[in-house]
């Protein structure tokens, strides 16, 4: 599905920033990078509507790193806040009380705790009502702002502060990651996409494409988290790239329910290469390697790409010795 795009190469990334450097987020934060790039594409006229998370703490009175509007709501109900802002602007413009030039793009921005867990009901309501808004979830796969506790986005095998790896529980978290992309797709959101900071052109084009859609639009952005995942802050982009190349983080979009992978890793890099870079998976390798757990992760990735390839007509070579 070729669409006209103003983004031919990464050099087309808008120069103008609406999120200032020097904010209070951690060095190497993939979340704030996603917000920054997202904002570049949307332009200045934005109302960010936020639920509790890492972005909340950087908006600390009397300072704001944003050149746009910001509203912190509550942990569970940022999409309802977006509903209020959208409806108010619409009704005031319709009544002639506000000029169209004051209109804003309404964007919910939350972490995975709000998007996958406590705020899912509110999001579901907004999707049902076909609310015209963007949702940007910076997904660092745990409750990062409170110190890295398990969320329903945490992948199988990750240790967190509430699912530590111990002799009795050697794998850490044993629940598989919730598939929020499919949840939104099942609820008939007209546009759902995944993003990775390492794949900038794909990122820019998807945000641009969302601008042509009316209704609820979800972006799930992989947000490398140096403090939570345990890696060097300079490695964020490399690590996100590895997540994509191993097939752990598929880049895809669903337009009116039709899924298309926007980047197909022809030969998957073994998941082990990704897992071993991070403290949260260290127990899978130490004191002794746990080949069954690593094989389980690899097996799920292989099965995912086999199924996706069969549907969309592409083939992905899985790592040697990890099955078909």
């Amino acid at each position, binding site marked *: 599905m070729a669409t006209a795009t103003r983004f031919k190469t990464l050099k087309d990334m808008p120069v103008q920033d609406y999120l200032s450097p020097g904010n209070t987020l951690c060095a190497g934060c993939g979340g704030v990078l996603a917000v920054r790039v997202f904002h570049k594409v949307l332009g200045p006229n934005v109302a960010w509507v936020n639920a509790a998370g890492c972005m909340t703490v950087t908006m600390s009175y009397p300072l704001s790193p944003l050149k746009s*509007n910001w509203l912190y709501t509550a942990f569970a109900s940022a999409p*309802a806040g977006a509903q209020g802002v959208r409806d108010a602007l619409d*009704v005031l413009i319709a009544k002639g009380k506000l000029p169209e030039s004051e209109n804003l793009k309404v964007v919910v921005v939350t972490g995975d705790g709000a998007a996958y867990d406590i705020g899912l009901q*509110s999001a579901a309501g907004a999707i049902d009502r076909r609310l015209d808004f963007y949702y940007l979830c910076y997904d660092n796969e745990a409750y990062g702002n409170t110190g890295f506790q398990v969320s329903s986005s945490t992948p199988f095998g990750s240790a967190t502060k509430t699912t530590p790896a111990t002799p009795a529980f050697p794998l850490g978290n044993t629940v598989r990651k919730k598939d929020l992309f499919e949840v939104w797709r099942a609820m008939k959101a007209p546009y759902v996409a995944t993003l990775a900071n390492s794949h900038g052109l794909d990122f820019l084009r998807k945000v641009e494409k969302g601008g042509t859609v009316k209704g609820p639009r979800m972006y799930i952005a992989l947000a490398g988290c140096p403090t939570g995942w345990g890696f060097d802050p300079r490695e964020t982009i490399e690590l996100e790239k590895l997540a994509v190349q191993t097939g752990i983080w598929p880049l895809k979009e669903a337009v009116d329910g039709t899924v298309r992978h926007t980047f197909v890793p022809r030969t998957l890099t073994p998941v082990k290469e990704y897992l071993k870079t991070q403290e949260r998976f260290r127990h899978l390798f130490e004191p002794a390697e746990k080949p069954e757990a690593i094989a389980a992760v690899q097996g799920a990735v292989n099965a995912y790409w086999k199924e996706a390839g069969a549907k969309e007509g592409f083939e992905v070579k899985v790592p040697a010795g990890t099955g078909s």
Partner: protein
Amino acid sequence: MKGQLLTGNVTAAAAARLARVDYVPAYPITPQTEIIETIADWVREGKMDSRFVQLESEHSMMTAAGAASLAGARVFTATSSQGMLYTIEMLYNVSGWRAPMLLANVSRGVAAPIVLEPDHNDVLAARDSGFLQFHSETCQEVADLVLLAYRVAEDKRVMLPAIVNLDGFYLSFTREPVVLPEQKAVDLFLPPYEPVAPLRASRPVSRGSSVFEGFLYSYFRYNTHAASLKAKEVFEEAAQEFERRFGRSYGPVEGYMLEDADYVIVMSNSFTALGRQAVRRMRARGVKAGLLKLVMVRPFPSEEVAAMLRGRRVVAVFDQNLSPGLGGIFYPEIAGALYNARGRPGAVLPVVGALGGKQTTAKEMDSIFEEMMAVDRAGKAPEPIFLMRADELTRVKKMVSVAEGSR
């Protein structure tokens, strides 16, 4: 002027329409639902120029309400009981945002056990949220207090959200004669809402920012408190204008047969009517009885309460609510208002009654005055009263035995 017969719920909806609200986010709950059904119908029939949207919970409803208010819309919504409890988190947020929207609460007791008829544990759960609170005795007061509440809430000296309370069933579903003001007169009394620092493209703002230092947090909290206190004066100003325009007068409290009263019962909301009848019966018996009604609950009218209860022999506080382990919720507020007042009453009698809308007989009401007199005669400290009649207790025992027998 002759009124039309309207339920409390339809009156609340009509007052919102007269206030020309822009936006009504809603969620159904008994006994409030008739309000949002009425508004939804008017909007879809083109009889009300507002946007109506049904959310998926009261928590989301209040989030949308507060957010829309910050974006510059005049907002109205309604809830009851569990819905009030479910959205408590957002009440604190919306008042902290200084978003002057209006919430009609149709009082209903709170679970467990589930009950449908009124007491005030729902609205008093919002007591500390920063919302202004106005409580109505009649359907007419519902209409008038909605208009007054907008006027006060949106005043630049206040900028706080408000709750107008009406009792479920006793007002919500009861038709009473109501005079609805003319739209033109309302427009003069209540000019369009002017938001402070709304979310705008031309001048972006940050709302709900975090503060991580106690002194700054204290500043904003004190500021909310000061704005709430200011609301009393603003209400009195608005009430004077309201009386000039519409001929009905309101104050933070209302006295009934108070002038020479020795024994005064303090009440709120629709059951106040039972208190008035009891006062008249007592007067017929030669007892100097009187009543003080709370209209404004937040800010709490401490000075008015102290002034109007000065010099009484005994005061009874009728609490239609219960804080288990404490007793009634208004009692300590009234007692606190009186403690440092000169000429405070000889005793203050705590009474809890009418929970879950429990029918309250004339005899029960009279017994409160009789107990006030007994306390006065004996010069003793009053014992708290929890109203329950012998015939009710007999029925309770029978039902308990049925429940036990089915094990």
